């Protein structure tokens, strides 16, 4: 881990100063070290690391929360940040969208630490490069595999919250995002297959044998796709594997349930939502097999934590139960504005951004079927694996998603591989066509570091855990102009 200037940091003094100027004050310290390792075609491509470190000074003035970010952690630097936050917030408070109070920043005390068996710190960079080289080499299964890339992103984050009401929270995260990708090409055709485990792990993830085995499978599947037929076009049944369910949950459940979107904050950028405030408790979002949770306590999932950035204690909550919409994704500010029940999801991407309502871990709870039982229920359909393409409208209704790999299903049996599998639909009818949900043993847990939202823009980490699921009567199609 790169060294920080944290030893100079004295939040108590700064908050003592801020308390004389604001109705409430908070400080969020964030230090994040990110290490990138990329190997391509058995050669090192990129070796880099970054340290982002700073604080967000936050004040409540005349019922309005405002922010100022600085990387100067000295006493004078923190005072300057608070002075700036107070001056701007005071000046703008008469145009405030809503009158808040310190109730939206509860007293919080506690700690969180990612589960890991081996500190990322104690995993040598040579060890990681060795794993990536093994992956790159094992993808060399044919001359048609023209590009073999293996990368690892290691992140260590330390977030500390302090407030004038006595909050003191420290959360430390170890995160790993791996990607191994093989591209097979011949003539005008090209197919890429990836393996991308993502989670709150330590160095234990860097197992040379696993990297080599999974990467070889990836390359062989890319080759298989190169020779495969295009996915057929038509209305048919669809089984989505967990690494595509991740995206389906994210785009068509997570985003539309964000209360700040429902309240219109996001209208100019990511968009609004088809969900209305009075839909909660009433809307049959999906079939009765659909149970969806916000679960920050899921061990090892990418966006697990104990407190959000407003100091709100995070707990597992059902968002959708037996298909009925119950609860939105909004923290204390959104709950106060909307009168809706929410969750602890007031999150920021870094020290230099104010928190907003974000997804964290949004999971589809397991059902009762094995994958084989699901396949046996399909007369004509496609099983799709691993997201490749994603697009949905700004109200989160009309989506079109594509996957890397497809398998035909005919008369209850898995058939040949098809390439360029895509499908499209509309959110509520699609989820109401949910006909089977895999049992606990079939669950896969994935995540992404790249969920974009907010003005100014923020990228944040999310996790999604799900079993495979069967949907009836979906519009499926392949590639081609």
């Amino acid at each position: 881990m790169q060294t920080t200037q944290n030893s100079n940091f004295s939040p108590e003094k700064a908050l003592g100063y801020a308390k004389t100027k604001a109705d409430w004050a908070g400080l969020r310290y964030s230090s994040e070290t990110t290490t990138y390792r990329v190997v391509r075609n058995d050669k090192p491509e990129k070796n880099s690391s970054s340290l982002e470190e700073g604080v967000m000074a936050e004040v409540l003035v005349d019922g309005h929360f405002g922010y100022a970010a600085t990387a100067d952690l000295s006493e004078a630097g923190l005072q300057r940040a608070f002075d700036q936050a107070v001056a701007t917030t005071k000046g703008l408070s008469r145009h405030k969208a809503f009158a808040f109070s310190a109730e939206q920043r509860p007293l919080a005390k506690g700690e969180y630490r990612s589960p890991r068996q081996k500190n990322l710190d104690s995993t040598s960079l040579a060890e990681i490069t060795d794993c990536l080289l093994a992956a790159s080499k094992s993808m060399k299964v044919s001359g048609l595999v023209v590009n073999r890339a293996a990368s690892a992103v290691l992140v260590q984050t330390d977030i500390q919250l302090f407030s004038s009401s006595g909050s003191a929270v420290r959360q430390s995260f170890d995160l790993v995002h791996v990607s191994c990708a093989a591209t097979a090409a011949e003539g005008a055709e090209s197919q890429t297959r990836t393996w991308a485990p993502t989670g709150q792990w330590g160095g234990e993830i860097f197992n040379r044998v696993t990297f080599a085995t999974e990467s070889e499978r990836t390359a062989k599947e890319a080759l298989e796709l190169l020779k495969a037929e295009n996915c057929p076009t038509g209305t048919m049944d669809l089984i989505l594997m967990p690494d595509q369910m991740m995206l389906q949950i994210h785009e068509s459940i997570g985003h539309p349930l964000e209360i700040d979107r429902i309240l219109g904050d996001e209208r100019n950028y990511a968009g609004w939502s088809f969900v209305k405030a009075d839909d909660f408790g009433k809307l049959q979002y999906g079939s009765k097999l659909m149970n969806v949770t916000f679960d920050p306590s899921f061990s090892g999932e990418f966006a697990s934590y104990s407190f959000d950035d407003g100091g709100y204690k995070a707990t597992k909550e059902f968002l959708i139960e037996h298909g009925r919409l119950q609860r939105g994704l909004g923290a204390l500010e959104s709950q106060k504005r909307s009168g809706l029940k929410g969750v602890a999801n007031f999150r920021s991407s870094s020290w230099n951004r104010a928190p907003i309502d974000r997804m964290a871990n949004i999971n589809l709870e397991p059902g009762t079927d094995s994958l084989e039982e699901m396949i046996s229920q399909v007369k004509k359909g496609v099983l799709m694996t691993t997201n490749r393409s994603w697009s949905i409208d700004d109200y989160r209704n009309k989506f079109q998603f594509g996957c890397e790999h497809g398998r035909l299903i005919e008369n209850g049996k898995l058939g040949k591989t098809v390439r360029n599998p895509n499908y499209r639909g509309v959110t509520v009818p699609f989820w109401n066509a949910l006909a089977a949900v895999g049992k606990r043993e079939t669950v896969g847990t994935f995540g992404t570091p790249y969920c974009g939202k907010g003005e100014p823009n923020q990228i944040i980490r999310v996790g999604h855990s799900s079993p495979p699921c069967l949907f009836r009567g979906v519009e499926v199609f392949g590639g081609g102009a």
Partner: protein
Amino acid sequence: MNKFVGQAKQEFQSLCDALFQSLKSEEDLTVNLGAENSLFVRFNGNRVRQNTNVEQLNLSLKFQSAGRTVEKSRTLSGNLETDRNSLVQLLEACRAEAKTLPEDPNQVPMQNNGQSNEEFQGDLLGAEAAAEAVVRTAEGSDLAGLYASGPVIAANRNSKNQSHWFATESFFLDYSLYNGPKAAKGVYAGARWNPGDWKANLERTKQQLQLLGKPAQNVKPGKYKTYLAPKAFADLIGMMSWGALSGATWKQGRSPFKKLADGEAKLSPLFSVRENFGLGLTPRFNSLGEVAPSTISLIDRGELRELLVSSRTAKEFGLKANAAGEGEGARSLEVLPGTLDEKDVLKELGTGLYLSNLHYLNWSDPVTARITGMTRYACFWVEGGEIAGPIKDLRWDESLYDALGSKLMALTSQAEIDPAVGTYFARDLGGGKVPGALIDQFTFTL
């Protein structure tokens, strides 16, 4: 010049001097600075939802020794002594790490690519004045959006005496107006806030919003003649920076423009696109300090002239580099205008769709350069050369080979600047200049 810019310049030069003095004879170093002192004000319902001041300086080192390359970056505190100590430690960490790495055969050795120094001063409103200017002028409107302002800096030096400095003071208001679920979009950007210009900009958006009050039109999926207004066309063209124009992506077998690059396909002779740094939206130097030509013709009358090629890609694949950035995406893309006068657009469209904006584009089949996305904001059904009324948002799915090929009917003679308004990590520099496009048989699917 702005006080922040002056202090940042002084610190950058001092830190670089200290770092270069610490180098051993066989070592080389490139240093990049990205910095901003920004005010962000977020609006919802024409009220202030959040305000954030952000002062940040980020310094990155690219260290080379014995055929190895290590890159490290960190946030600077702004305190020279603290930062100098941190960076000397960071340089030492680079040295140690380089020893653990295999040799990099595609390493691009550092050289002196010259010197440049550009500073653009603005006249920006303070926070209170900016909020007043937005809220008072838009009184009675449901406005949502983001105001961002302040200086942005990009600078580069290396141990071969190369030196570049670029600083600009600017602002943008990226906003939309709402009438219930219907919305129209506007962007007002520049270096000096002019109340008259802002009012005129807002009025244009209000007029579009008024058109959305016409009776809603039910348009079924199908193929329609379609006009993409400059912002919508800029969204479509922007996808070319997702790998299509990259030399590395082509050579790695993943380029949506593979057939174009291999000479097996052509686009319409009406379509020409180039990098044009003369637009003044972004510095010409990249993170290696290489200075791009003022213009680079990429596609000329439908035929590929050049892809964007970084020095590293050039070395690996034997291509000619053109000072592209590491990601080989466009930085200042200009689509050359055509001959269709803006006032004739509806007449030429006749019956079809007028789209002001697109949303959430992605490759749906990269091999055939097929893209899917949605319509967004002020989108209308046009009949007999007149706007009939707004449509319900439609999903579309179309290949660039078709939309920019045989289906491209005309480009407008007026092109609009599309300033970069991205703020991930920091405020973006750059943008583009794009005309409107009339396209036949554009495919709508849902």
